[in-house]
């Protein structure tokens, strides 16, 4: 019976690593639509990890989580965001705060910090080694992505990657995942958050005629 557990932890580590790679692509990527698709892939990997854990520990509610992530973050949200982008029909993301090479370097640094922070807790993970470190890195790079980009939609996406990072930590750290009621609460909160930001983005688009958040600077000190 050890083989599947061994296989499971390798699978989890692989998928977590792939999530990190997708994240780095998003940092570099300029095109809005590809960004959304990258986010969908990342969520897919997260769902994968959840299913593996659910299978390994026979925890039924982790399966629920996997299905929810699959439905919500892989299918529903990306379609909603793409429809939004198409209606506002801006494709190209203009020059971000830091250009690609410097942001990549910074993400490298953040990964290092993620590992440093997560190092004392590696003993905690049952399956897949240092997924916690990856989770912390996802959160930090998501944070960095947020203030690196100007487009409102990318900021929402960055927020969602932070969310993914947190869910990864939850899944990796806790042996059987969090109690179901908490999972549901978190999931729906994220959904509603994205809906609302979608509405706001639409309204901003209407009144500011642009998605560029750097224009939102009237409220000075």
């Amino acid at each position, binding site marked *: 019976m050890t083989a599947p557990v061994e296989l499971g932890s390798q699978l989890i580590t692989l998928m977590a690593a792939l999530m990190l790679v997708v994240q780095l692509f998003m940092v570099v990527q300029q095109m809005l639509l590809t960004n959304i698709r990258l986010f969908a892939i990342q969520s897919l990997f997260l769902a994968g990890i959840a299913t593996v854990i659910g299978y390994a520990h026979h925890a039924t509610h982790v399966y629920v989580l996997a299905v929810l992530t699959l439905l919500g973050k892989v299918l529903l949200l990306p379609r909603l965001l793409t429809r939004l982008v198409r209606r506002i029909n801006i494709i190209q993301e203009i020059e971000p705060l830091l250009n690609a090479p410097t942001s990549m370097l910074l993400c490298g640094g953040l990964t290092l910090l993620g590992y*440093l922070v997560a190092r004392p807790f590696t003993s905690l993970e049952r399956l897949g080694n240092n997924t916690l470190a990856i989770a912390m890195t996802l959160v930090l790079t998501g944070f*960095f992505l947020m203030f690196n980009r100007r487009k409102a939609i990318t900021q929402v996406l960055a927020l969602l990657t932070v969310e993914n990072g947190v869910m990864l930590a939850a899944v990796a750290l806790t042996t059987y995942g969090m109690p179901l009621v908490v999972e549901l609460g978190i999931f729906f909160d994220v959904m509603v958050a994205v809906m609302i930001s979608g509405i706001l983005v639409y309204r901003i688009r209407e009144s500011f005629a642009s998605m560029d958040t750097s224009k*939102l*600077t009237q*409220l000075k*000190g």
Partner: protein
Amino acid sequence: MPSDIILQPATLLTLSLCGYVGGAVAGLLFARHAKLANLLSFSAAALSGVSGLFAALVFLASAAAPLRQIELVPPLNPFVQFTARLDALGAFFLAIVSLIGFGLSVYSLGYAKGFLGRKNIGVLGAFFNMLLLATTLVFLADNAFFFLITWEIMALTAYCLVSFEHERDETRKAGVLYFVMSHIGTGCLILGFLLLFQTSGSYGFDTFHSIGGQMSASRRNAAFLLFLVGFGTKAGIVPLHIWLPAAHPVAPSNVSALMSGVLIKTGIYGMTRTFFEFLGTPPNWWGVTVLTIGTISAVLGVLYALMEHDLKRLLAYHSIENIGIILMGLGAALMFLHTGHGLLASLALIAGLYHTINHAAFKALLFLGAGAVLHTTHTRNMEEMGGLAKRMPTTSFFFLIGAVAISALPPLNGFVSEWLTYQSLLQGFGTTESLIRLMFPLGGAMLALTSALAAACFVKAFGITFLAQPRSHHARQAHEAAPTMLIGQAILTAACVFLGLFPTVFLKLFDPLTEQLIGQQISSQLTVVNGLVLSGIAPNGGTVSTLGISLIALCLVPLPLVLWLLFARGSKTRIGATWDCGLKSLTPQMEYTATGFSKPIRMIFKTLFRPRREVQREYDFSPHFARTIRFEAHVEEIFETRIYRPMRIGILRLSRRIRALQAGSIQAYLIYIFVTLLLLLLFAL
């Protein structure tokens, strides 16, 4: 049986508190019909003033009465109990607030009619009652929380009363300045009480009793300084006094009388309570600081008062001077406590507190007089008054009594309390060997300078306002104040005369107070010859009896009459014109003015005042035949220009620089949070 129930201090006290509450509610309820509101609220205040006064006197007279714990409101949580406690110190100050409250309320019955058309009298009455209630509760509070709450209510109601006539810009500015300064003071008080709380573990005043002993030296000194600044701001000692000459003149006269007479005394009450009861035996430098601050406040207060020709600002500056004199007494008492001279300490304390009630009486009287004058002449500028003695004989008589009292001239109460202060300063010389003892005689000399300058100032104030010819149309049309206003002034004049002529009777009431604070009962040593004569502590200390002086004076009065009968029976008296060096006749413009009167002092103390004068002369063809001449003289208010203005500019510049932090762009905010997160993570590793 019923009589002794009524005379019980507790019942009288609750009666007075309910009276104030009733007055406030009546004021608000009947705000629409002004006359009724005026009558109800101020008579309620007067009644509660009387009952408060009796409560205090009965409590003090039955000296042996123990502390009385009165539960006002059921305790909400273990730390905030609204319990009132009537002890000797509280009762003494309760007597002050009730006596002055009684006089002022009677006065306000007439004075408030002046606002009939313009302002809402009901609100004035309501706030007046609330202020009296809050001040009474401040003196009775037995718990730091309750004390701070009532202290805050007092500051707020006083603010509302100061900016009662808020249509004038000057009032609004003064109100804000008062508000900010009193809150700086309250801030220090909160910190001070927190320091005490840390050692005693609870906020009750009984647990704070001589807690100084258990506190570490640095914490005790910190607490002392916090209380000094906190209560000093409310009392108006020199470096923190700038709100006082701004706030008092703009308030309605009965309010400025209440503020000068009673509100600044809460500062003195606070200092006495904390320095003598809470902080235990003081180190030497406490007494020296308080004495120095007192001397400086006294001298500067009177010097700036001399330069004023706005009647109410002049009186406000005099409040600073008298607070200085009170602090000299308290400072000397602290120094004697340090050297262990219990008897002298209680003499100095009695001198300080006796001057507190004296100042409350004559300052309130003077403000009421000024209010009556203001009421008819519609101006505060003395240069536009004059000749009011003939038109307002009774008010001018009362003002004269007040002026004589405040200039510490025998036989009135100012002289008695200053005589006690002199005695304590004199005896103080022998108490220590170090050079500190030089401070006592020099303090005495400064006290003499202050009272002489005060006499000069009040010759100016009385002379220019009441004597000679009226300088303006309003002054010419002036009419005597309403009867209730005169009764109010009469009450306070009677208080001044009684406190002046019969000090020995009043000193017995101090015994429980000195017993509680210093553990000495010395009123027996202070009264000699069947209680008529006041004497200093030392066996051969000087004696004085204002009563004796006035009696002998009465006996000597017939002497001039006898001489007149003997030699001058035939002489007649004629009314003629003042000598005018041959001019047609003396016009009011030729009279001496207030600015002129204080010119010599201004020249003598020019380094302090740095006077500036501008003369603009408009002329058609030759400068010698000027069409109009505009003369303007300024005296520089050094505290304002040297300390407070640079501080304000500095703060504004600092805040403008920090404003850049709120840049407005969301990226910037995100970066702030990101950096904080990174720092914290590194910190947590």
